[in-house]
């Protein structure tokens, strides 16, 4: 709160945090668990006690997401998947959970005849590439996954065509894309299509946010929250909010009694 209202203090804090982050090795591991204090046997006059305490504190600080992010910025990494505080999603469930439950022949694939009929349709949704069997690769969301790469290409094409960016392409938008890509020609060549889909990247400009802009954005929460949110298995913080028409107030714990809840945070821009 204090940081938000005092830009000068915030900037100074930013420099200090950045200096701390620079001193620490970059790319801190994404491990949320802080190791238990070693050497509890040391007495107060033993200097090792203070060395260990210092190391432990340094370790805790390095594992804070905001420090990871500032460290990444300080090392010149632009915000991107897997960099700084952009960690992968986490889940109580995963391939192993599913395999333990349904992969009866243990061959690393769950085919439709291994699924009880009452869950077949629901579980079939897990077959991401729809190749008829659920396997470990269906749960790989890293950018190395072939499926994820395909999806990125498809999204790129989609983004070039969906001019009003409302998430839906109309026939008109599709034809308009054709006209733009074909330039003045009646037909589209592979080179035209490539040029339309992958225009040259603009040079970085002065308008791009600087590391200090990012710090300001983090302090205000615009570009990400300094807080880290609840962990897997942790309790969801309860809240009550009004809807955008101010007509209805919703309390999470009331909805949550009978059904699971999906929360989607976001804004317009």
């Amino acid at each position, binding site marked *: 709160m204090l940081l938000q209202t005092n830009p000068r203090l915030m900037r100074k804090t930013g420099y200090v945090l950045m200096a701390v982050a620079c001193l620490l090795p970059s790319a801190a591991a994404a491990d949320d668990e802080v190791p238990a204090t070693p050497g509890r046997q040391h007495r107060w006059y033993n200097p090792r006690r203070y060395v260990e305490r210092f190391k432990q504190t340094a370790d805790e600080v390095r594992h804070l997401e905001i420090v990871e992010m500032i460290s990444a910025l300080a090392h010149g990494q632009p915000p991107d*998947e897997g960099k700084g*505080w*952009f*960690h*992968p*999603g986490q*889940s*109580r*469930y*995963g391939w192993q959970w*599913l395999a333990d*439950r349904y992969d009866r022949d243990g061959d690393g694939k769950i085919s439709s005849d291994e699924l009880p009929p*009452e869950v077949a349709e*629901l*579980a079939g*949704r897990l077959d*991401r590439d729809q190749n008829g069997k659920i396997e470990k690769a269906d749960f790989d*969301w890293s950018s190395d996954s072939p499926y994820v790469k395909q*999806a990125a290409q498809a999204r790129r094409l989609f983004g070039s065509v969906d001019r009003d*960016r409302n*998430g839906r392409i109309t026939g008109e938008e599709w034809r308009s894309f054709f006209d733009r890509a074909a330039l003045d020609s009646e037909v589209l060549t592979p080179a035209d299509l490539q040029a339309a889909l992958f225009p040259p990247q603009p040079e970085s400009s002065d308008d791009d*946010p600087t590391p200090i*802009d*990012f710090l300001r*954005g983090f302090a205000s*929460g*615009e*570009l*990400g*929250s300094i807080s880290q*949110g*609840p962990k897997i298995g*942790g309790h*969801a*913080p309860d*809240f009550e*909010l*009004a*809807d*955008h*028409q*101010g007509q*209805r107030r*919703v309390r*999470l714990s009331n*909805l*949550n*009694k*009978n*059904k*699971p*809840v*999906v*929360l*989607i*945070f*976001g*804004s*317009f*821009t």
Partner: protein
Amino acid sequence: MEELHRRYGDRVEFLAIYVREAHAANGVWPSEFKDRGGEPINQPTQIGERAEIAGDCCQVLEISMPLLVDDLDDRVGRAYSGMPDRMYVIDRGGQIVYKGGRGPFGFKPAEMEQSLVMLLLDTTGDQAPAVATQSTDGCESACSSALNQGE
């Protein structure tokens, strides 16, 4: 997102929570964005203003789930580290089942769907007695820049 809401809406509550604008015209990283009649979006300073932008967002993106508006201090967004966007799945006991990565890179509706499906598989057979829950209709609803990315 809309497709997921349609597919699982009878078994799962979907809530969209509108938080602080990430690329407001008067913000740190402005970007001209989205069709709001060409009008720039400034960071709302009044809760009513925020609700209004949320409503516009809802219309442009035609979203049908309840759209809640976070307070100006972003207390819910901060508690969940929800800015600029992020998704969670919470089970009936109030425990976090899935925590998506920080948006925009971590916003992966299909990844979230897998956790949701496995939660439903895990709890098939021990559903709570059906209790009528209030439902909202039409476009009193939700929105997220993120909602039109991804599948």
